[in-house]
């Protein structure tokens, strides 16, 4: 047994304890550390660093946040725990792009006269198809005419999966056989939506890793083909990110944006213990708002993203 054998045995216990302990005590420490000081205590910053990095915020963004807080504190000469507490959260939240529908609780869409086409993209298994089911449900509930297109023609039973969702939320689906051309399915869907005067079109696409050039080109093609029917389609390209993904999400955002001009993000699986903090840096760097969060596997489990609540969750247990 090498060094790590003993490392694993010895440290495991403290790690177990540590993992649950950290977050509870943050504000306790905060109040002790800052009373009567005009500079943020190192201990507070160390704690903050741990909270942010453990939430997948990433080193760069964490350092940026800490720097902003230090500046702000030295400028404002904060007075107490409560102020620092809200400064902290404000500074973090301000890195997240403002979402236009931020304070709208329903799932609103701009009225353009043409069907509003949402193309849903992302790496494998993040929750694209499920999010589409949930979105279709929300739009239909708010009285819109929805149509969905099964342009994942690759993965086993992907079409069946979407079809079950279509039946579940009671919206029509356009599909072809497994293995057919995804661009052709997308085209059919948009054409049908236009012919039938639908309000919203949601296109499912196969999961693909962003480093596969051919597959990324395929997305560009799907997008282009839809424009033959509606010139400014897709009005929305929704990149779905798994809330438990770490720093690789940056590269995902970068590559999908290059291929398809992503306009919005959805963050899924936030009903788990992962915090999804990587979206802060992404939203900041690429100026893309987070629009939706997934909090379960049922059709109701989709919410509009709220910056403040999201940031709060880092400091909860």
């Amino acid at each position, binding site marked *: 047994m*090498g*060094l*790590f054998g003993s*490392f*694993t045995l010895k*440290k*495991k216990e403290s*790690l*177990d304890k*540590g*993992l649950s302990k950290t977050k509870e005590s943050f504000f306790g420490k905060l109040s002790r550390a800052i009373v009567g000081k005009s500079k943020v205590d190192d201990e507070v910053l160390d704690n903050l660093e*741990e909270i942010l*990095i*453990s*939430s*997948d915020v*990433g*080193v760069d963004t964490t350092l940026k946040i800490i720097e902003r807080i230090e500046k702000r504190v030295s400028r404002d000469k904060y007075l107490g725990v409560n102020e620092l507490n809200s400064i902290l959260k404000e500074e973090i939240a301000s890195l997240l792009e403002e979402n236009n529908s931020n304070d709208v609780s329903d799932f609103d869409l701009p009225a353009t006269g043409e069907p509003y086409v949402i193309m849903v993209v992302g*790496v*494998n*298994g*993040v*929750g694209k198809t499920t999010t589409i*089911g949930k979105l279709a449900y929300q739009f239909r509930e708010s009285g819109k005419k929805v149509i969905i297109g099964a342009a994942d023609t*690759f*993965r*086993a*039973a*992907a079409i*069946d*999966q979407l*079809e*079950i*969702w279509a039946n*579940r939320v009671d919206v029509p689906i356009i599909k072809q056989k*497994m293995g057919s051309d995804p661009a052709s399915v997308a085209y059919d869907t948009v054409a049908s939506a236009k012919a039938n005067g639908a309000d919203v079109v949601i296109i499912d696409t196969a999961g693909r*890793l*962003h*480093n*596969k*050039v*051919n597959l990324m080109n395929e997305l560009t093609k799907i997008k282009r083909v839809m424009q033959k029917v509606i010139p400014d389609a897709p009005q929305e390209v929704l990149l779905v990110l*798994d809330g*438990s*993904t*770490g*720093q*690789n*999400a940056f*590269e995902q955002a970068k590559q999908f944006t290059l291929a398809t001009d992503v306009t919005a993000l959805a963050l899924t*699986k936030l*009903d*788990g*213990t*992962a*915090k999804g903090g*990587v979206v802060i840096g992404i939203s900041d760097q690429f100026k893309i708002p987070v629009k939706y969060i997934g909090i379960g*596997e049922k059709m109701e489990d989709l919410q509009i993203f709220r910056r403040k609540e999201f940031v709060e969750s880092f400091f909860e247990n």
Partner: protein
Amino acid sequence: MFENLSDKLERSFKLLKGQGKITEINIAETLKEVRRALLDADVNFKIAKQFTDTVKEKALGQDVLTAVKPGQMMVKIVHDELTELMGSTATDINLKGSPSVILMSGLQGSGKTTFSGKLAKYLKEKKGKNPILVACDVYRPAAIEQLKVLGQQLNIPVYSEDGNKNPVAIAKEAIRFAKQRGHDLVIVDTAGRLAVDEEMMNEISAIKKGIDPNEILFVVDSMTGQDAVNTAKEFNDRLDFDGVVLTKLDGDTRGGAALSIRAVVNKPIKFVGTGEKMEALDVFHPKRMADRILGMGDIVSLVEKAQEQFDEQEAIRLQKKLAKDQFNFNDFLAQINQVKKMGNLKDLAGMIPGMGKALKDVEIDDNAFVHVEAIIYSMTPAEREDPSLMNGTRRKRIADGSGTSIQEVNRLLKQFTETRKMMKMVAQGKRFTPPARNVRR
């Protein structure tokens, strides 16, 4: 792509240069870089800290006399430590029991169903097993259908009970059925579940109890971030699983979650998933993973990336040519086009060990190939087919024809010869350190 750790360390080691020994003070900056690299790779915050503490202890304990080049020594300590933690030898899957029963577990979307199919195929082909797949995900829309489609593709039977919503009962019945039909391997696919979902965690415990599997695999997405420790720990507490499967490694994630999971549950990583197709399974290579986490370059992923761009036919054709040393200028031209298709040349070259640093300040754009292409297009078909024809007169003619100089033609010929050598080595699976001038303009 993140900056390579070895580059970072080299930078921080400048501080150490000329100092005879490693001390608390001069090691601090270096350890900070190591820690940061680990965090960038998604190694858990606490694990990264403990790792650097261990490395520090080890480094400080070193005989100072050997520390003439503290920089190199640190790289080695870090790398060795990491490899050791990843598990120094491959651990095989346990196929005892008749039939042997393998149970899949993991979060939603991690790749359980896909991996069930891959494993069935692998064990059928490599170990001569007669597997049956069992569909115990009664929740996700079309989950059963998904497994059935895979079974059909693989020509491996799938046991399912349409309408039955009790996975424990299905799993038990499947084992009975498998025995009856003489299957010696049963692979049980289950629904994705969150570690905090009490009801679902109870369910999988009950499945375990009901079928007493020989092997429980925890399937985890290699792109997972900091939360990997919590999930792995919770699943392990509940199931005491036997091994880990790391999926989607065909992406460009550093995969630090692998390190976190090893550290927190101390179970071996047994397999990796490297694609969506049923053959995209590999046994776990600890050293390769250590390299990857540290960003030390992974020639394997470079080759894979190159392969991704080829159609199968082209790859086979090229493989043959390389083996017979018949690689010619037409192939070279095709290569250039492939590389151009792959996009960012610098990223790509960064995957080659030793190349990252060489390329740091070199601007590469796709125009880098314009002259090269012009030169090749000025060759006669015979010259392109057989590079050994190239003599002085031909070189002069080509230089004139392509509007370049004889020096440029010579340089290309030299590059070509080296590329050919390099390609041959790649084809034979050897590591190589290409001379930097190959990519410099």
